[in-house]
């Protein structure tokens, strides 16, 4: 093989080939990670977003009725043909799973629809044969079976869900709804709940983040000034609770904070208070315990940034005549901004997803949004609503992250 002259086309080609091979190898090496991210992160999030707007139950189960109700004015009683179409649709559902899904979907729109739909479904499988009757007769039989079929709200719910996609879950997640004419309006105050819960979630997270910062900053500073051996021993004290199960720590807080617990006994013995304080099953308990659990996430990034700040700057400032405190805030603290930014962001984002701690230590008005997501998934089995709340939480988190980037003007760095 001859050696190609510098700059010759042959050399360039060879170089390009080598480069391409390298890129391929690099890609092949990162491929497992990319695939992993795709499978465990992007696909589930995509599925969640799709579920939040997907609405197949009504169209799948009632193709004839939804087509027929498309022309209905939604203000007068639906035509007898609609009754017949509904009975035909229900009669042709072979899988009772579809009827169950339809009943669940309509019930989350109009409470009571579940028993109405399932009752009528059972009748259509038995004595109510739409194909052997005139539409008028079907109407009479359905009204005789359950007089609620005369109420327009059930028919409106069917007509409203004639599309395979719906904005309703997302609208409900921000306390809005579509009215009869399809206009978007606010829900009545006694049903407005999720904006309040979202604000509460952010409120609790902000307080926890701030307390973590106030407690973690001095501790991290102290650790960073100690000799390595001592710092390592103390660091273990920070990390041991970090490795303990959250449930165990929650249980420990119950023991400490209850009415006859250690904290109250100590306060009573020291005559600080006259009667035991209520520290549990309210906001106080939630914040104390969440701060404790999340503190390491604040201390670790702060500590790693502080370790890299040379102590000479502070000494130089003081020797140039600055008061020690002013020097600390004007010279030292600005150098730890990246640590503060990373720590607060980490703690805040972790805390908005908290579920177990508020569920076990909080009252009914201290539950964060995950509690309601879990309720929709497990108790109501209304996954559309759960996904919509998840999507709102995701959107809010992304907005906050972009605000953070604007303010800090840097990527998230962990020191």
């Amino acid at each position, binding site marked *: 093989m001859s050696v190609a002259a510098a700059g010759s086309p042959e050399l360039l080609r060879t170089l390009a080939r080598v480069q391409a091979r390298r890129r391929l190898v690099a890609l092949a090496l990162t491929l497992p990670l990319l695939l992993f991210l795709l499978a465990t992160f992007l696909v589930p999030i995509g599925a969640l977003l799709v579920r939040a707007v997907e609405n197949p139950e009504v169209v799948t189960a009632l193709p004839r009725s939804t087509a027929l109700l498309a022309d209905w004015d939604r203000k007068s009683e639906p035509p007898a043909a609609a009754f017949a179409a509904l009975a035909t649709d229900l009669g042709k559902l072979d*899988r*009772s*799973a579809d*009827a*169950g*899904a339809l*009943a*669940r979907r309509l*019930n*989350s729109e109009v*409470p*009571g*629809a*579940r*028993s109405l739909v*399932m009752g009528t479904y059972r009748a259509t499988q038995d004595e109510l044969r739409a194909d052997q009757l005139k539409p008028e007769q079907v109407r009479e039989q359905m009204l005789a079976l359950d007089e609620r079929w005369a109420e327009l709200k059930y028919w409106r719910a069917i007509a409203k869900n004639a599309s395979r996609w719906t904005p309703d879950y997302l609208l409900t997640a921000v306390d809005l709804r579509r009215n009869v004419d399809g206009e978007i309006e606010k829900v009545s*105050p*006694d*049903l*407005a*709940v999720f904006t*309040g*819960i979202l604000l*509460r979630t952010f409120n609790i997270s902000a307080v926890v983040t701030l307390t973590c910062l106030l407690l973690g900053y001095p501790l991290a500073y102290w650790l960073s000034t100690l000799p390595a051996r001592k710092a390592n021993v103390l660091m273990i004290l920070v990390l041991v609770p970090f490795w303990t199960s959250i449930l165990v720590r929650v249980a420990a807080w119950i023991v400490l904070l*209850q*009415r*006859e617990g250690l904290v109250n006994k100590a306060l009573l013995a020291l005559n600080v208070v006259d009667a035991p304080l209520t520290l*549990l*099953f309210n906001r106080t308990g939630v914040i104390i315990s969440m701060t404790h659990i999340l503190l390491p996430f604040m201390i670790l990034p702060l500590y790693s940034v502080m370790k890299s700040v040379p102590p000479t700057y502070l000494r130089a400032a003081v020797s140039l005549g600055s008061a020690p405190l002013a020097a600390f805030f004007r010279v030292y603290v600005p150098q730890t901004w990246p640590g503060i930014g990373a720590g607060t962001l980490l703690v805040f984002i972790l805390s908005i997803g908290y579920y177990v701690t508020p*569920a*076990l230590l*909080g*009252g*009914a*008005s201290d*539950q964060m949004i995950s509690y*309601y997501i879990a*309720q929709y*998934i*497990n*108790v*109501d*089995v*209304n*996954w559309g609503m759960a996904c919509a709340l998840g999507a709102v939480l995701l959107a809010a988190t992304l907005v906050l992250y972009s605000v953070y980037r604007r303010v800090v003007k840097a990527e998230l760095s962990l020191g």
Partner: protein
Amino acid sequence: MKTTTLIAAIAACLALPALAQSQLTVVNFGGANGAAQKKAYFEPFEKAAGAKVVAVEYNGEQAKIKAMVETKKVTWDVVEVESPDVNRGCDEALFERLDWSKLGPKADFLKAAVHECGVGTFVWSTVLAFDADKLKTAPTNWADFWDVKKYPGKRGMRKGARYNLEFALMADGVKTADVYKVLATKDGAERAFKKLTALKSNIQWWEAGAQPPQFLVAGDVVMSTAYNGRIDAAQREGKNLQIAWAGGIYDLDYWVIPKGSPNKDLAMKYIAMASTPEAQSEYAKLISYGPTNVKALPKLDAKVLGQLPTSPANSKDALQFNIKFWADQGEALEKRFASWATQ
């Protein structure tokens, strides 16, 4: 010697799949109830059927069953579910329909225990509980529960609308028989929430069934709503917790078989065995939940009977939980409760 060990090991390995086939996964809520089921049902069944019972604990999450059935990877064979879920799961075809001819005469069971997809396994009750060592006069009904002048202090209540709305109406003077009729109306729901508001600042909320006895023993609350079995368990530990049975809400838990369970026949055998009067009376002796097989009652002595929600004295003024009402209104009322809690 060595070869025999090797052969034995290989034989054991070959035998494993055969063993695995006669394994039954039974899912329950754990705790004292799980322990009682193990003794009264699992162990006798293992002996009688020669199958191994694998007990799994869960917290009533129907999402898990739904996910298993939808992906057709059903690893649970028998599951204990609460009454609203047996109806809903049956409607949505998550559970197998049961062949009652294999389960015994329907007439032997309480009416509510007979379901096309499930067999009621025990009757439990949500009741008013208190620590008799700490209260001079015992509260007797929900009006006393709401009376903060006569009984100052906090009250424990389950976080959520279910049961609490019924209790609020009873405290407001609605007769037990009329509770669901009133609650179904718009004004009735309004009235229940208004009554709850009157007590709001005195409520300490609980999440798990184990909490109310702890609250009561610790003196955090003077009274609490509680599951009667948990109070019974605390009594067995020597605590002087008592129950005011009037106005308690009783309900059933059911055995169901998730649709597509590979061990359906064995699961049916298990349910049949766990529904016999003998097994159910053993169970009731271990935890004070009432048998659903009425033939189990004569096998119990007066002391055990006195603790059961199904005994005549205890069920005299009790309310049966209305599955249909909560299946229809549950989601809306829970949402309203969340909104109410924020106000």
